[in-house]
C-alpha cells in the first residue's frame, strides 16, 4: 500500500495565522493538520504513520509550552525524519537562524514574512 504524502503539519500558537496558512495550503490541494501547542504537535508527529504522510512540517519557535526546535530535536532523536522542516518565527537574529538550521531545519523564515514568498518556498520544498 502506498502512502500519499500530501499532508502539511503546522505547529503555531497564533490561531489566526494557523487558519490563514491552512486556507492557503488547502487552496493548493494539500491536507493540513494544525496544532497550537508543542505537546500536541509532538505527540502527533511521533506516530510513524503520521510522519510518513507528511510532506512538510512548519514549526513556530515560541510556543506556549516549548521551543519548536525542541520538537525538531526530538524528531531527529526518536524517528528517521526525512520530511523537510521549515521554521517560522519572530526570533530573527543571526544566532537564532543559525541554531534553527544547525538543528536540521531546511529553511528559517522570520516574521513578519511575505505570504506569497513563504508559499513558494514551501511548495519548492515539498516538490524536493
Amino acid at each position, binding site marked *: 500500500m502506498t502512502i500519499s504524502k500530501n499532508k502539511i503539519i503546522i505547529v503555531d500558537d497564533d490561531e*489566526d495565522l494557523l*487558519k*490563514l496558512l491552512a486556507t492557503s495550503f488547502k487552496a493548493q490541494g494539500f491536507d493540513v493538520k494544525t496544532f497550537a501547542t508543542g505537546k500536541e504537535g509532538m505527540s502527533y508527529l511521533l506516530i510513524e504513520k503520521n510522519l510518513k504522510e507528511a510532506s512538510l512540517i512548519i514549526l513556530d519557535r515560541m510556543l506556549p509550552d516549548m521551543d519548536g526546535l525542541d520538537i525538531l530535536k526530538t524528531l531527529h532523536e526518536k524517528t528517521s525524519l526525512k520530511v523537510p522542516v521549515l521554521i517560522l518565527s*519572530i526570533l530573527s537574529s543571526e544566532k537564532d537562524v543559525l541554531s534553527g538550521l544547525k538543528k536540521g531545519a531546511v529553511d528559517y523564515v522570520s516574521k*513578519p*514574512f*511575505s*505570504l*506569497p514568498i513563504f508559499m513558494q518556498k514551501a511548495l519548492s520544498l515539498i516538490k524536493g
Partner: protein
Amino acid sequence: VNIYHFLNLFFYFEILVLVLVLLFILIKRVVYFFSSRQELYRKKKLSEVLSACFLKKQKCELIQKVHTKKLLLEVLEVFNHRFSGQEWDLLKQSLCERFLLKKARRFAKSYQWTKRNFAARVFALSPLKQDENIILELMEDQHFLVASIASCAAIKLSSEKGIIKALKKLSQAEGYERFFYADLLSQGSGDVFYVISSTSLKNYKLHLAVLDVLSLETSQVQLKFLLKDLKSHDENIKIAAFKVAFRNPHDEWEDIFIKDMNHDNEIIRKLSAECLSKYPSKASFHALSKGLLDKSVSVKLASAKSLKVLGKSDLIKDQSLKKYVLEFE
C-alpha cells in the same frame, strides 16, 4: 432624642451609600465582563474578515460592518507583526487610507494623549509623505508613547528631518529611551543610514549618537568620516569609532589598530585587538601575539579570541588561556 434620631438616620444613610457603591462596582464588573467578551468576539470576527480579504476571498468593504476604528487599528497592528511584502503593504495602506488616516490627522492635535497615541500608531502603520509635518510634530510630544511611535513612522518614511530629530533625541536620552532610539535608527533602511552618515557632526553629543547607531549594524554606506574619528584624541569618540569599525572593516584602518594595541587606555587596546580579528596579516598576528602579554586580562583574552578567529591559535602559548578560548569562546 433628636440627636439619637439624627445619628440613626445618618447610620442608615451610610449603609445605603455603601450598598450603592457595592452595586455600582458589581454592575461595572458585569458590564466589563460582557463588553470584553464582546470585544474579543468582534476582534476575532474582524481578524477572520481581514484574513479572507488578504487571501482575496472576500471584499474589503465588509470590514466597515464589523469594526470600530480602535479595533481595526489593533487588528492591523497584529497582522503587521505577522506579514510583510508588497501585497500586505498595499492592503494595509488602502485600509488605513479608507478607515483610519482621516481620524488620525484629526486626533494628532487632540489634547488627550491617548488620541495622539492613536494618531501616531496609524502613521507608524502606514506613513505617507503628505503627513510628514504632522508626524514631525508628534515626535516632539511630551509623552514617550506618542513621540516614540511617531519616530517609528518618521524612520519608515525615511524622512530626513525625522531621522535627525530621532538622532537628537538619542543624543539627549538616557536608559531605555536611548536604547529605543538607537535600535530604531539602526533598523532603518539604506536611506536612513545615508542620512545618519552624512549628518553634520559638529555637535559632540550628536556625533557620539551617530557612532552609537552605526556600531549596531553593518552600514550600507561608506563611512569616510570614520578615519578621522579612529585617529581622534578624544577617547570617547575613538572608542565609539572602534565599535563602528569592528562591524565595518576597511583595509586602510589596520595600521591604526596595530598602533593602538599600545594605547594607554585599556578599552582601546581591547577594541583594537577585537578589530584586528578582521585582518589576517603578519603584522596583525604579531600585534595580537604581543597583546597576549598585556597587563590587562581583557586585552589578553580579546587577543587570544582574535587569533583563534584568524586560525592562529597555535600562537597562544599560555595553555590555560588557549584551552579557555578553544573550549568556551
